[in-house]
């Protein structure tokens, strides 16, 4: 008697449980369209976010100027503020260019006209690496690739920069 009672209650228990699981799955189905609707929004505010570099577009000239800004970065163990820099100018088509200052040889910081001997070029002081104004590496100098290019956007007349990508990919 007591055994039967127990069996029933066990079946009931299983029933409840399965309903529970089914309920969960149903809830999952309901949630996922919602998630899909929200996800792109979530993504935009986290990785790949563009930062305001405090430079008004109207102040950008054809002379490359260095801009510095900070971003918060979580990198494994460390959460820290990272300093970023870019060389920004308008090219002959009046388009904004923003190059990473990191030399493609071994990573030193390059400067616009950093050497008197090479006017109108970016110059890397470490091993005399050179780049033309459009970022292309000067053949015969150590760097083997053009300077990386920042993702960029103009919002309300201000320049926003994101990540630096190899030229042609940004």
């Amino acid at each position, binding site marked *: 008697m007591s055994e039967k009672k127990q069996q029933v209650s066990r079946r009931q228990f299983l029933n409840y449980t399965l309903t529970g699981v089914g309920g969960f799955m149903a809830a999952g189905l309901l949630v996922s369209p919602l998630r899909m609707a929200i996800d792109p929004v979530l993504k935009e505010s986290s990785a790949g976010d563009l930062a305001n570099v405090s430079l008004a577009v109207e102040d950008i000239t054809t002379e490359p100027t260095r801009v*510095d800004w900070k971003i918060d970065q979580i990198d494994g163990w460390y959460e820290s*503020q990272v*300093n970023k820099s870019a060389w920004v100018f308008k090219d002959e088509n009046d388009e904004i260019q923003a190059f990473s200052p990191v*030399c493609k*040889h*071994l*990573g*030193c*910081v390059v400067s616009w006209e950093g050497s008197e001997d090479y006017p109108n070029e970016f110059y*890397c*002081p*470490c*091993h005399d690496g050179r780049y033309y104004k459009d970022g292309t590496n000067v053949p015969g100098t*150590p760097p083997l690739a053009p300077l990386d290019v920042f993702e960029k956007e103009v919002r309300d007349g201000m320049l926003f920069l994101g990540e630096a990508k190899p030229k042609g990919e940004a």
Partner: protein
Amino acid sequence: MYWKKEDINKYVQAKEYIDTIIIPLIPFQLSQDNDLEKNAFQSEVLTVFSGEIERELTGRVMLIPTYTYLKSADKESEAARLNGWVEDAEKQPFNHTFFVTFDSSWKKHEQALNGTLLWLPGLQTGDLHSKEMHAIIRDQVEQISELVRSYWH
């Protein structure tokens, strides 16, 4: 380059391009109540500062782990230990050695050091994360890296 796995792997493959070491010298002493705050602050600033120089010149410079010593220690014997580090690095070879510090007491013992001492004056206290401090550090970093570069020519 830093003393960490990723950078060292790069270093090993490009040894001929990396010929300069920078060693930060940071005093530490808990028994000197009056100077505790100043010393701790300068330690923070120098760490940021050396990191910025490293970033500027990473392809040619190896930033050595900070040399830490008691503020009251005898500088001659500290210099002897430091020269041991330098001698070891020179076998690689590294041709240029720079020591960076806020501690002026090294100035008197400059001759004993096997390398170039870059003593940075000032910065007793302040807010490391303020805009002003950022500008000061940027400015100093630029000047010091220019100085380092002048040794390369």
